[in-house]
C-alpha cells in the first residue's frame, strides 16, 4: 500500500478522532459520567493509526486496557464505543464490558483486555487461524513496554516464530508500566532487541511519527502475508495523561512530560501535511470540526440510549 495523499489525510482524521474521543472521555470521566476505570491513549495515536492503516476488516487485532485508539484505528464505531463507556444497552457490549472489554469481532477486533499481556497468545491464535485457513490475513498484537515482561510475550513470540505465523507484535513503549519506569523494569533499551531471542525481525521506530510506524508495519505485514512469519515492532511513544484518569502521576518528571508534549504526533503530522501541500490549515481545521461533531453525536447517542435491564445480567454467558 502506498502512502497517497488520501491515505495520509485519512490517517490524520483517524488520529484526530482518537484524540478527540479521548479528550471527551477525560472530560466525561472528570464530570463523573463514566463509571469504572478509563485508560486513555492520547499521545500514542500514531501507533495504532500507522499500524492499522495496513490492515483490512478481515485482519485481526488484539488490544489492551488502553484500547480506544486501537479500536478506532481498526474501524470501530465511536457511537457504539461511547455508549459502552456509559454502560448502555446500545454499547458494543450492551454495557457488560465497559472501556476495558470493547470488541468488534466482525471487524476482527478481538477485544480490549484488562489482563496485561493476555492479547499476545490470543493474537498468536488468530494468526494461527489465518495460516490454517490459508486466508492471507494477519493478526496484530498491541501491548505495552510493561507487558513485554510477561511470560505471555515469550511464549507467544516463540510459538509464532516456530510456526511462521502471520502475527505482528507491536510494542507500544510509552516508557512506563503504571509508575514503573522502563529502565527499572527491563535491562535493555530497545524492546525490539528481544526479537533475536526468537529468530524474527525486530525494529524500533519513532512511535510519534505516523509515517515511520506505517512503513515499518507495512513491511512486517507484507512479510506476514507472504508466509515469512512474525515480526516485532517497537514504537517509542508517550502517554500524555496518567495511567488511568485520576492518576496524579507523582512518578513522572515534569520536564520529561513537557519535552514529550512537544513531540505530539498530531501537530507533527499537520506540519507534514502542510509541507507536502496535501492540506491547508483550513482543511485540517475542517477535519477537526467534523470529528468534533462526530464525537458530540456519539455522546448524545450514548446519553440518550437506554440503561440495561437488571435481568440482562444472566444472558450471554453461554452460546447455545
Amino acid at each position, binding site marked *: 500500500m502506498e502512502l497517497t495523499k488520501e491515505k495520509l489525510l485519512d490517517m490524520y482524521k483517524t488520529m484526530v478522532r482518537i484524540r478527540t474521543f479521548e479528550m471527551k472521555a477525560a472530560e466525561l470521566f472528570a464530570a463523573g459520567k463514566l463509571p469504572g476505570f478509563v485508560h486513555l491513549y492520547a499521545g500514542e495515536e500514531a501507533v495504532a493509526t500507522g499500524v492499522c492503516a495496513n490492515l483490512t476488516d478481515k485482519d*485481526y487485532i*488484539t488490544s489492551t486496557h488502553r484500547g480506544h485508539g486501537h479500536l478506532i484505528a481498526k474501524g470501530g464505531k465511536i457511537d457504539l464505543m461511547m455508549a459502552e463507556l456509559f454502560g448502555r444497552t446500545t*454499547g*458494543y*457490549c*450492551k*454495557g*457488560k*464490558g465497559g472501556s476495558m*472489554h470493547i*470488541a*468488534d*469481532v*466482525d471487524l476482527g477486533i*478481538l*477485544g480490549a*483486555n*484488562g*489482563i496485561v499481556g*493476555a492479547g*499476545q*497468545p*490470543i*493474537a*498468536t*491464535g*488468530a*494468526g*494461527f*487461524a*489465518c495460516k*490454517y*485457513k490459508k486466508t492471507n490475513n494477519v*493478526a496484530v498484537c498491541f501491548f505495552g513496554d510493561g507487558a513485554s515482561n510477561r*511470560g*505471555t510475550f515469550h*511464549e*507467544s513470540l*516463540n*510459538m509464532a516464530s*516456530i510456526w511462521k505465523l502471520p502475527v505482528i507484535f507491536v510494542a507500544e513503549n510509552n516508557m512506563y508500566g503504571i509508575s514503573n519506569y522502563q529502565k527499572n523494569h527491563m535491562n535493555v533499551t530497545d524492546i525490539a532487541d528481544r526479537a533475536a531471542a526468537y529468530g524474527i525481525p525486530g525494529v524500533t521506530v519513532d512511535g510519534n511519527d505516523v509515517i515511520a510506524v506505517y512503513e515499518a508495519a507495512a513491511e512486517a505485514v507484507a512479510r506476514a502475508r507472504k508466509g515469512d512469519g512474525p515480526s516485532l515492532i517497537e514504537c517509542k511513544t508517550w502517554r500524555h495523561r496518567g495511567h488511568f484518569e485520576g492518576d496524579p502521576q507523582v512518578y513522572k518528571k515534569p520536564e520529561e512530560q513537557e519535552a514529550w508534549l512537544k513531540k505530539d504526533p498530531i501537530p507533527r503530522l499537520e506540519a507534514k501535511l502542510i509541507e507536502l501541500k496535501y492540506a491547508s490549515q483550513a482543511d485540517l481545521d475542517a477535519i477537526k470540526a467534523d470529528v468534533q461533531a462526530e464525537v458530540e453525536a456519539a455522546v448524545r447517542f450514548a446519553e440518550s440510549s437506554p440503561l440495561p435491564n437488571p435481568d440482562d445480567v444472566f*444472558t*450471554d*454467558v*453461554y*452460546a*447455545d
Partner: protein
Amino acid sequence: MAQMTYAEAIRDGMRVEMKRDPNVYIYGEDVGIFGGCFGVTAGLYQEFGPERVIDTPISETAIVGSAVGAAAAGLRPIAEVMFVDFMGVCMDELLNQAAKMRYMFGGKARLPMVVRTPCGAGMSAAAQHSQSLEAWFTHIPGLKVVMPGEPADAKGLMIAAIRDDNPVIYIEHKQLLNMAGEVPEGEYVVPLGKADIKREGSDVTIVAWSWMLQKALAAAEELAKEGISAEVLDPRTLVPLDKEAILKSVGKTGRLVIVHEAVRTSGFGGEIAAIVAEEGFDLLDAPIKRVTAPDTPIPFSPVLENAYLPSEEKIIKAVKELF
C-alpha cells in the same frame, strides 16, 4: 457397537469430528509422533498429518491462550494440557479470556474450544502429577466441565464437547484409560448436562464421577450383598449440572453420599451437598456424606497414596453410617 478402551473411545470421538469438520485440530505437547504422554492421540498424526495434529513447545499459557484466539477466529481447537496439574500455568487464559470473552463482548463471540487433560492419582506420580482440580473450573462461569467415567461416555461426551460453541474442559482419568467397554460407532453424542443412573437402587444415592464412578459401582455391588440397595448416579458433566436428576434420586432414596477424588475442602462435592441441603432438605432422612481425599497434597509412596485415595471400603463405610 465396538469393544474399545476409554482412551480409544476418546480418540474415536476426536477422529469422527476431525473427519466431519476440517476446522477441528489437535495441539499440545508431544501429541504428534509420540501420540501423547498417555497415548491418547496415537495414530492421529499419521492419519491427519502435521497440519492438524501439532506438537507445541512447553508453553501452556500460549497453548490455551492461542486456542482462545483461534476459536475466536473460527477454528475449533482441541488443546491438550498434559496433566490437569499444569492448569495453574494457563489459568488466566481460562478464567479471564476463554470463559468471559462472550459475556464481556455482550454475546458477540463464540469460542468453540476443548481443553483435554488427564487427572487423577493411583500411579505414584506424586503431588504435582496426580491432582483432581475440576472444582476450580466449575467455579468459572462460562466454562463447561466434562468428566467421563466409562468408555461410551468418553466418546459421546467428546463429540458433544467438540460440537459445543463454548469452551469445554474435558477431564479424562489416567486410571480409566485402559478400561474397556462397548462403545457405539460413528457420530455418537452424549449431551452435556445430562446425568446417568449407572445403577438403580432404592436405599441411598451415591453421586460419583470419573474414576470414582467405578469405585462407587464396586461398592454398590458389595452393599447389595449386605442388603443395601444403592443407586449410583454419574453427573458426567459438572457444568452444566443435572441437578434435577440428583434431587430426583435423593427423593427416591432419602440418603446421599457424594464421592470424589479431589481433596475435600471446596471440592465439587460441597456444591452438590449444598444444592441438596437447600433444595432437597425435606427429601433427606440422614446427613449428607462426602467420601473424598483428605486435605493434603498427594504422597508418592504407594502405601501413602493408597491411604490417601477414596476407596470402595471407604464408600461402603460411609454408606453404612447412614443406616
